[in-house]
C-alpha cells in the first residue's frame, strides 16, 4: 500500500481519479493525474499548467531530475497538486517541498523503514532556506 507523506505525517491515498502517462491523456471524463517519468523532456511540460495532479517518478533517490522538473512546472505557473513518487528518502523531503512538491508517495516497505517521525523531522523545510532568502 502506498503511503502519502505531507508536513503532517503519513496518510492513505485520497486521489480518486487515478493516473495516466503523459502519452495516454485521452477523453476528459475525469481529472486524471498525470504521471511523468524522471527523464521527461522540459518541452513536454508545456500545456500541463491546468492539470489537477501531476506525479513525478523518482526511480532512484540518486536521480535528482524530478526536483528540477517540479521547479520548472511551478515557475511555469502550475498551481495544481504535485507529487513525488518512488524512491525518495526522508532526508530529501525538504528538497522536494522546496522544489515545489506538495507531497511524496512512498511504498509500504520504505514507510516501514523510514517511519513518519523521520519525515516530520524535516517538516520544518521552510526554515534555514538560503534560496528563499536570496530570492526575497
Amino acid at each position, binding site marked *: 500500500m502506498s503511503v502519502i507523506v505531507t508536513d503532517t505525517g503519513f496518510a492513505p491515498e485520497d486521489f480518486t481519479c487515478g493516473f495516466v502517462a503523459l502519452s495516454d491523456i485521452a477523453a476528459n471524463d475525469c481529472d486524471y493525474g498525470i504521471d511523468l517519468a524522471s527523464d521527461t523532456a522540459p518541452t513536454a511540460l508545456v500545456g500541463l499548467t491546468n492539470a489537477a495532479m501531476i506525479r513525478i517518478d523518482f526511480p532512484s533517490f540518486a536521480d535528482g531530475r524530478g526536483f*528540477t522538473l517540479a521547479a520548472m512546472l511551478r515557475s511555469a505557473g502550475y498551481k495544481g497538486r504535485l507529487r513525488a513518487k518512488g524512491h525518495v528518502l526522508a532526508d530529501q523531503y525538504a528538497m522536494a*517541498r522546496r522544489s515545489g512538491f506538495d507531497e511524496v508517495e512512498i511504498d509500504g516497505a520504505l514507510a516501514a523503514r523510514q517511519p513518519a517521525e523521520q519525515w516530520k523531522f524535516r517538516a520544518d523545510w521552510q526554515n534555514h532556506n538560503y534560496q528563499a*532568502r536570496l530570492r526575497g
Partner: protein
Amino acid sequence: MYTYTDFDEAFVRERVAQFRGQVERRIDGSLTEDEFKPLRLMNGLYLQLHAYMLRVAVPYGTLNPTQMRKLADIADRWDKGYGHFTTRQNIQYNWPKLQDVPDMLEALADVGMHAIQTSGNTIRNVTADHFAGAAADEIEDPRAIAELLRQWSTDHPEFQFLPRKFKIAVTGAAHDRAVTKAHDIGLRMVRNDAGEAGFEVIVGGGLGRTPMVGKVLRNFLPKADLLPYCEAIVSVYNLLGRRDNKYKARIKITVHENGLEKIQELVEDRFATIRAGFSGHDQDLLAKIEAAFAPPAFVTKSIGGYEATRLANPAFRSWTDTNLAEHKANGYAIVSISIKKHGATPGDATSDQMRVMADLAETYGHGELRISHEQNVILPHVHKSDLAKVYAALRQVDLATANIGLASDIIACPGMDYCALATARSIPIAQEIATRFDELEIEHEIGQLKIKISGCINACGHHHVGHIGILGLDRAGVESYQITLGGDGTETTTIGERAGRGFSADEIVPAIERLVTGYLGLRRDADETFLQAYRRLGKQPFKSILYPAQDKANAA
C-alpha cells in the same frame, strides 16, 4: 572578511543535527549503506583506503586565525596531529572515526566552518583566487561573489543529486590564479564598455580522464544576473547531463555532446524564466557581503630595515625572491608559506605549524590566511617591515622553504598512500623529485616550473595543466608514470601533451631530472621559462631528452 550571520550559524547547527541523526539512522537500519553514502558525502565524509576521511571546506580559501587554530585543535583531538591542504583549497583529515565526525562538525560550527558539499554530486565548495583582495591586478575582490555563490548553492533543493559533481571557480584578476578554465563554471570578472563590472562565464572545463578547456558561454554577464544565470546552467545540466555513465556525466561532456550553441540556447531560455523569480534581495545581501570584505586598514609607514636585512642575510633574500608577490598597497607584500619542504608530503601541515601561521596572521597579517590550490598557505597582507620577523618565526617550525613556483613546489594528490581510487603512489614521487633537485641545488637556476602529479586518471593533482605533468597508472600490477608536457593552468590554459611511453617508479625521477637539466641547455637565456621554451621549440627536443636510446634507434 565575512563572518557568519545568525542565519548562517543556525543553518550549520541544524545541518550538524541532521547529520548526527543520519549517522544514527544508518546504524539502526533506517538508511541503507547505499542511501547513507550520498548523505555522508554531501557532508564531506569519504571512506578511503584505510579509514574515513573528512574534507573540511575552506570557503574560497579564506581563514581567520581562530579558524586556523580550530583546525589545529581538531587535528590533535580527532586525527594524528596534522591536516592535508588540498588542490581545492580545502583541508582533509585522514584518520577520523565515524562516531566522532558529528562532534568534529560541531567544533567546526563553533568557528563558522563546515564540511558541507565538499563531496558528492552537488555544487562543491566554491574556489577563488588565493591572492584575492591583495593582488595588484584585480578588478574586485572575488570572495564576495564566491560567498554569494556559497549561500545560493548550499542545500540548493534542486541540485543535491546532480548527474555528477559540479565545481565553480571565481577570479577578479586578469591573471588567472584560480584555474577558471578547468572548472564546470569559471567566472572571470571583466568590465564592459560602460565600465561596469560583470563576468565572462566559462563552462565545461575540467581535467579528469577527458580533460577539456572551458568554453565561453557568455562574454559579459551583469553582476546582478549571476545567481539566476548559474541556476539556469545547473538546471539545464541537471536534466540534460548523462546519468547512464559516470565517466560521461560531467557538464564538459554535456557541452561537448550537445554543442556550445545548443547549451547557450537552453541556458538563455531557462534564464529568462528563472530571472523573474529574483526580486533583487540577493543584491542587497551581496552589498552587505562586499562591505564585510572591505580591505583591512593598511598603514603607510617605513619599510624599516627590510632592504638592509635582505642584503645581510642570503637565506632571507632567497626567500623574499621566491615567496613574495606584489601587493596592491604600498609597502606591503603577499607572503606564500611553502607547505612543500623538500622531502615532506606536499600540503601536510602539523597542528604546531598551523598555530604558528595563525599567530603570524594575527600579529603581522591583518588576521587573514589563505589556502592556495597549489597547497600552500598565504599571508595576504604583510608589511615589508615585518617580513624578517615573519621569516624567522617560520624558520622555527620548518615553514621557511624558499621554493614557491619552483621545481619542488609540486602539487601532488594523496595517491595510493591514502586514496581508494589511486592506481599509483604520488606523494613519494613528489618527495623524491623535491629531494633530488635540492641535492643538485639547481632549482633557483631552473626558475619557474610547475610539476603536478596525479596518482590516477581522475587528475586531482592537475597533471594536465602542469608544465610537466606526471600521471601514475597501474600497468598489469606495476606502477607506470606517464609524462605530459606544456600544460598551463592560467589565463592561457593548455592541456599538456603526452610525451611517450611511461616510466617505472625507479625511472621517473631520473627522467624528470634529465628533462629539466636538458631544458637548461635548450633555453634561449635564463629568462626563458620551461613553458616558454617548450612553446617555442615544440615537443621533439624534449622527447629526445626523455627517450635518448629510442631517438638513436630512429636515427639509425
